[in-house]
């Protein structure tokens, strides 16, 4: 962090957020320069990556200058002041287009900011723009965006994961040092895994959901994305904390994630390996890297124990009842009456016909599929068999975690069963697509927290592999403790972060 920063733009975009913030604080570089460097990078590489749906150069630079002034006058002091960030397009941003990756919201500019956006602004973090995503966060590849797919910087023919593929790809292609994602079933962690970046799904209720367009309210959680564990922790500390506008947000102190990220120490920690999340269905190279990471953790002084979570086999089924049910209700408001597009309003159609035509035209196939699934699952006569049963599974999965955490401090698994697949490869096979989230979904169902961090490249395809660390609710600091220890050991091994291996664009 203390290294003297080079102000050449090509160097600026490769720095960590912590390094940039420190340089800005010390007056070596301005937020305006850092922001401009990233905007230049976006102009240069995003035509081939398509991580962003919206960038407003003038607006970002104006804000950067304000922040520079704020820092100079001592009004803004946060560990990330002046650093730019990319925001997933699911976050309401005042006056700035917010589409959720959907055509139905084309042209909508929210009249208010999400709580996260307010907190970032107060901390002097500068928004670069809004990133691409699967429509309404439904998907694992960003191919379901209404505005075209995002490409994986490691291989432009491959998907960057989803739904937060835009945020992850922006990090991996050095278009932004920080990003915000949201994670309903793995939408932060799986993109992090397949792009060689770091992403954390905080404890449910740890970060305010106010202003984040809801997919499945009981599962959604926004979180930090970055290229290393410390940057992720710094961002986590800024966005986390109680918000009275979100009743489900937890009113207790945020775990000290920054200190945990500095500790890099797993000596004496018991780390559980989830039996059900390895073996069949997992790519060979993914398991190889995973096992190597376990050896590394053991070498660092952690005790590795295998644990069984018997009910995880039902997680995917329960998830695909709860998520569509809540989504079918959450997405009912997109009817063309108050915001977004409107179709069929030619004076002859009834209000129902206009609503129907708008939804027909505005929603993509995956969104319609899940709305139909959810509407069916909540219907009278089916509720108990589907939604009711799924909630019971959810309780059993929670108990699996509880009993596992009686014996271990944290759990680990591969984040995703495979490395990044090819664009178009799974588009016609929804079930294969859903299986991407097999390891991440149980965490959302239980409401605890998890991190994905890069642990190497799969030998067979040379693509990044992610390891998932899972901790109990409100023990987010443990993720950073384990993550920082593992990252430090890997950096020692590689001579730098894995992301530095990403091909030049």
């Amino acid at each position, binding site marked *: 962090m203390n290294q003297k920063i080079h102000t050449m733009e090509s160097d600026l975009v490769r720095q960590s957020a912590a390094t940039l913030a420190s340089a800005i604080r010390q007056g070596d570089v301005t937020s305006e320069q850092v922001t401009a460097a990233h905007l230049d990078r976006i102009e240069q590489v995003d035509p081939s990556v398509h991580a962003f749906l919206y960038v407003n150069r003038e607006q970002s630079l104006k804000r950067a200058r304000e922040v520079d002034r704020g820092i100079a006058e001592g009004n803004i002091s946060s560990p990330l002041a002046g650093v730019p960030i990319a925001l997933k397009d699911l976050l309401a941003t005042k006056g700035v287009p917010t589409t*959720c990756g959907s055509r139905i919201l084309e042209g909508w500019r929210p009249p208010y900011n999400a709580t996260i956006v307010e907190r970032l602004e107060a901390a002097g973090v500068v928004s670069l723009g809004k990133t691409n995503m699967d429509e309404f966060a439904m998907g694992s590849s960003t191919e379901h965006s209404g505005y075209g797919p995002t490409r994986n910087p490691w291989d432009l023919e491959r998907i960057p994961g989803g739904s937060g593929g835009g945020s992850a790809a922006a990090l991996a292609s050095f278009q932004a040092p920080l990003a915000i994602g949201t994670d309903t079933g793995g939408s932060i962690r799986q993109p992090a895994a397949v792009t060689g970046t770091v992403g954390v799904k905080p404890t449910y209720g740890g970060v305010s959901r106010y202003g984040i367009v809801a997919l499945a309210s009981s599962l959604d959680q926004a979180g930090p994305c970055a290229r290393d564990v410390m940057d992720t922790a710094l961002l986590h500390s800024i966005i986390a904390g109680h918000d009275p506008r979100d009743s489900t947000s937890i009113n207790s102190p945020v775990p000290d994630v920054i200190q945990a990220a500095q500790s890099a120490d797993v000596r004496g920690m018991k780390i559980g390996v989830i039996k059900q999340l390895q073996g069949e269905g997992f790519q060979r190279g993914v398991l190889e890297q995973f096992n190597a990471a376990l050896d590394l953790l053991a070498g660092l002084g952690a005790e590795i124990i295998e644990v069984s979570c018997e009910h995880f086999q039902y997680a995917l089924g329960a998830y695909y009842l709860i998520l569509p049910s809540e989504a079918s209700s959450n997405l009912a408001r997109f009817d063309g009456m108050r915001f977004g597009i409107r179709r069929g309003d030619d004076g002859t159609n009834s209000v129902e016909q206009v609503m129907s035509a708008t939804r027909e035209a505005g929603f993509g196939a995956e969104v319609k599929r899940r709305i139909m699934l959810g509407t069916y699952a909540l219907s009278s006569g089916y509720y108990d068999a589907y939604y009711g049963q799924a909630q019971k599974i959810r309780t059993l999965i929670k108990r699996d975690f509880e009993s596992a955490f009686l014996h271990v401090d944290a759990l680990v698994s591969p984040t995703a069963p495979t490395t990044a697949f090819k664009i178009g490869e799974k588009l016609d096979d929804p079930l294969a697509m859903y299986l991407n989230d097999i390891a991440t979904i149980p965490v959302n169902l239980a409401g605890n927290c998890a991190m994905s961090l890069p642990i190497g490249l799969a030998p067979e395809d040379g693509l990044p592999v992610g390891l998932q660390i899972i901790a109990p609710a409100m023990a987010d600091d443990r993720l950073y403790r384990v993550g920082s220890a593992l990252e430090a050991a890997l950096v020692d091994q590689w001579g730098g972060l894995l992301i530095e291996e990403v091909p030049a664009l």
Partner: protein
Amino acid sequence: MTSTAFDHVMTEFEPVIGLETHIELGTHTKMFCGCSTEFGGDPNTHVCPVCLGLPGSMPAVNRTAVESTIRMGLALSCSIAPWSRFARKNYFYPDMPKNYQISQYDEPLCINGFLDVTVITEDGPKVFRVEIERVHMEEDTGKLTHGGGAGRIHGATHSLVDYNRAGIPLIEVVTKPISGTGSLAPEVAKAYVAELRELMRALGVSDVRMEEGSLRCDVNVSLSRPGQSWGTRTETKNVNSLRSVERAVRTEMVRQAERLRNGDRIIQETRHFNEETGNTTSGRSKEQAEDYRYFPEPDLIPVAPSEEWVNELRTTLPEIPSVRRARLQQVWDISDFDMASVVNAGALDLIEQTIDSGVSEQAARKWWMGEFSRIANERGCDLVDLPVQPLDIRQVESLIASGDLTDKLARSVFEGVIAGEGSVAEVISLRELKVVSDDSSLIAAIDQALSDQPDIAEKIKSGKIQASGAIVGAVMKATKGQADAAKVRALLLEQLGVSE
């Protein structure tokens, strides 16, 4: 409808009724956001991302609304659930910003209570215990105005939506089926809603302004033959005045009886009430009923009032209206009928306040139930809306006691006050309403009258005292009615040296 048609129902059938009453709570802010609940603002001015259901917005429960609901539950002798939840009621309609309504479904805040209501019958007052199934919270919808059609959404060329009302906190009070009322069913329904309104007002949780639509009732009615199981019910929606509640029960009983007598079945359906005709018309049948796909609202945590809090709220409960009425009736020493009249006129609080300000019980009742009721009736408003204060009555009453005003003059004073001519003192001076009590000016007026009508004077002198009315009348006329007639008469007789 004739009363005979109704009487005819009772020869063969017994009614079971049930009432679902929605009442707007009197909180300053909405159920799930900080927007004002004030009535009558420009359309869509009391709105924010939450009550507009904008993407990303989230509800946060209004604590005062929960408090009001718990107090209402306690006043209705309900059990307060230690854990209750909101649910989403899903249906598409443009007055619903989110296309779902946040309501309580199978886990309401208050359950199993009762409310005793009194109906005056020919045999005197009769008390019915109405059992309460539940009291729960929900949010109101926006208001639609349909243009270019018959005022309904079908056939309209356009519709306008005002979301000022969207998110106003409502409580819904649901009764258990009420049986055993016989022909008194319509009166019991009305008395129940009136009593509920009194209770809400006494608790201060709502001012229940029915003319602003802050109380709406869904009226369930079924008929059965004695000894047989209950019949199929209909639900008449959105009945929104006391009188309409009574009429809706009555017309629906008559309609159902006619169908049953003709061998037709009652269809389980919702029905609309027509305020003008008093009739109900068919709405949606059970088969067409929407599936609301209720599920627990995941954006809100359960409402779990602690025992401590509930007990604290219990100590804030005022005297229950029925208890208070019984007490006042005893203190004022009036009949059941008079008490019922006072309550029906909405004069209870006003009379009590007037008495508290130092006016005698009799005078207070006389003014409010007499002159003021007449004026309110003429103006088509409630007593409480008349611009006359208990202190005005005290002032006028003391002027009567001191002989400065007569009853007749006092009525004129209030007429002026109500007409907005000013305070009591201002109206007296403006209308020159002081009693003429100066003997010499009265005697001068009497002398003038006697000399104008010498024949009358002779008659009186000859003992025909009843003829004195003509002279008194002339004197009253001369003094513009501001003399005390009895005093004029006494002075006149004294003047003529006649004794009675």
